[in-house]
């Protein structure tokens, strides 16, 4: 694990504690009373993605063709406390890009994808005035920090699968539409950025949010 990844993990763990600190800070609400409710919300999403960094096709390859479009799937578990700062974990799979060509007349291809393993922090824009029906109050910004498992596959005279870990981050904005008490539908635009391997990817997802636990 490289130093930057270690630092990012440590700071992310520290940040994971922050919502808890908010919980235990002296109450400014003079009405006092019981805190809560708290929820755990599971998000499952899928959509399309476009790879935004330069790819490097080896010069020895001929008749090359690159595909920057891919798919993006997400599973996310978020703790929604009784304040606005939510935190949780996310993983999934995003296909970054692929290219193919020939080497001395023989077909060759490379596929690259990423599995994010991120600590997620999310905040709805709930400080805006208005009712719960206000559209802006249903918009949330999301940030993620952690690692990406970058997977690659070379197919040329055999197949070589390899993977490496890259520190990285994620940024996103989503709109959530309530459906029922425990079910919501969301649309999220996301920017994935594994920094160590110099990748970036833009994705749009439709998401289903399910309130799994409440207390």
């Amino acid at each position, binding site marked *: 694990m490289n130093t*930057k990844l270690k*630092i*990012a993990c440590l*700071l*992310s763990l520290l*940040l994971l504690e*922050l919502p808890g600190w*908010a919980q235990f800070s002296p109450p400014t609400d003079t009405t006092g009373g019981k805190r809560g409710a708290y929820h755990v919300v599971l998000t499952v999403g899928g959509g399309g993605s476009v790879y935004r960094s*330069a*790819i*490097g*096709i*080896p*010069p*020895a*390859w001929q008749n090359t063709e690159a595909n920057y479009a891919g798919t993006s799937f997400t599973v996310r578990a978020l703790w929604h406390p009784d304040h*606005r*700062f939510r935190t949780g974990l996310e993983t999934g799979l995003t296909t*970054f*890009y692929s*290219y193919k060509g020939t*080497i001395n007349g023989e077909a*060759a291809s*490379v*596929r*690259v994808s990423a599995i994010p393993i991120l600590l997620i*922090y999310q905040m709805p824009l709930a400080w805006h005035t208005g009712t719960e029906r206000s559209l802006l109050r249903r918009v949330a910004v999301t*940030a993620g*920090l952690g690692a990406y498992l*970058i997977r*690659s596959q*070379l197919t*040329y*005279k*055999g197949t*070589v699968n*390899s*993977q*490496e870990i890259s*520190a*990285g*981050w994620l*940024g996103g904005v989503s709109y959530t539409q309530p459906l029922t008490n425990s079910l919501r539908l969301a649309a999220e635009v996301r920017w994935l*950025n594994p*920094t*160590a*391997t*110099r990748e970036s990817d833009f994705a749009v997802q439709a998401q289903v949010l399910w309130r799994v636990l409440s207390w």
Partner: protein
Amino acid sequence: MRSLLLILAGLLLLAIGCRPVYEAPIPYDFSNKPGSGQFSPAIRRSMEGVYAVSGGGGPFGRQVALKWSYINDGADSVHALTILTGVDAGFFNLEINQTADSLSLTGFWRKLVNQGTGQAALSLLRKRRGQVVPYKGPALAGDTLMLRGTFDTGTSSPRQPLTLTYLRPLNPKPFEVIAHRGGGRTADLLGVSENTLAILQRAARFGATGVEIDVRYTKDSVPVLYHDNRLNQRLIQKNGLSGGISDYTYEQVQTSFRLLYGEQIPTLEQALRTIVDNTDLRFVWIDSKFTGSMVRVQTLQQRFAERARLRGRRLQIVIGLPGTEAVEAYRALPNKANTPILCELEPALARELGAAVWAPRWTLGPQTDEVKAMQAEGRRVFVWTLDDLLFLEKFSNQANLNGILSNYAPAVAYYHYTAQ
């Protein structure tokens, strides 16, 4: 809440990274024309030595060492003059200006510990009874050789005067200046990648007399030069692929990977052929970074040692044993004749294995008694990988070593050649 957002923003910045983006593009393209023009072998020999620096040469210290090197291209040789400055691992590489009427050289200077670089042009002069005149032939008694010219500190900077005046011959004591990773690291922005044929050809221009090269096996057991245990963008151009060299066959490596400056990853065979046929290097340290049998490496080591011998080259090729795995691979060789080794482990093991060279890590200190004992037994002693300039000076002047492995070969060479 604002503070939380600030922390988040800070973390994002951390993740985006503080990647140091710096460059030191070499501001001069060597023509690499064969031949030595008016610089006859006698003139070249007479030029080598320690010189006092005057004029605007402050960035290069009070004295420098001048040393010629060549690359043999088969029919002829390409000569280059290296000026070792001793400040910030600095050096000049100058080539012969074959079109000039006078004995003149052009090229560049570079400091390896920072981004300092620029162009330089010098002419050879002689000073006799206070008169400075162009130099045309071997020095006469009473002549003092001088190099006078200019240098700049960037393409748009003004040229500054530089004068070098001969002081004394180079320190003649036998000593190996061993350049790490074939000549230098890719990270040091030398214009070529580490562990390549190109850097091997340049190693002597950095003041090196020998090189250390890192050998790994491909999946189909072809020994190739590559340092890291993983393919990464520090050393190779982005292609989407990762893993280790040993995950890929030689053909996959050749067709799908390029090193950072566009070179192919060379085989050990290509590297040794380049060293024997094209350079004047006299020591090769094959660092065994591979796992598995050592037979293929030994075969190449023996073949090219013999090729060097037949060509009248004084070249020693040793197989480095950095750890117990390499030691076991060496022990497993069916025939150890004509296989000189370099042992990086404890002295007792170096003795037991009959190592030609004992090479402890420099951080273990000068180890004066052990060094003397090893040398008394006929072994040479090198240390690795010494890049701290302060310790380089100390080890060069006090430790009585036979050689130093460094990423800063110009600094090692400077301290050695200027020692009195």
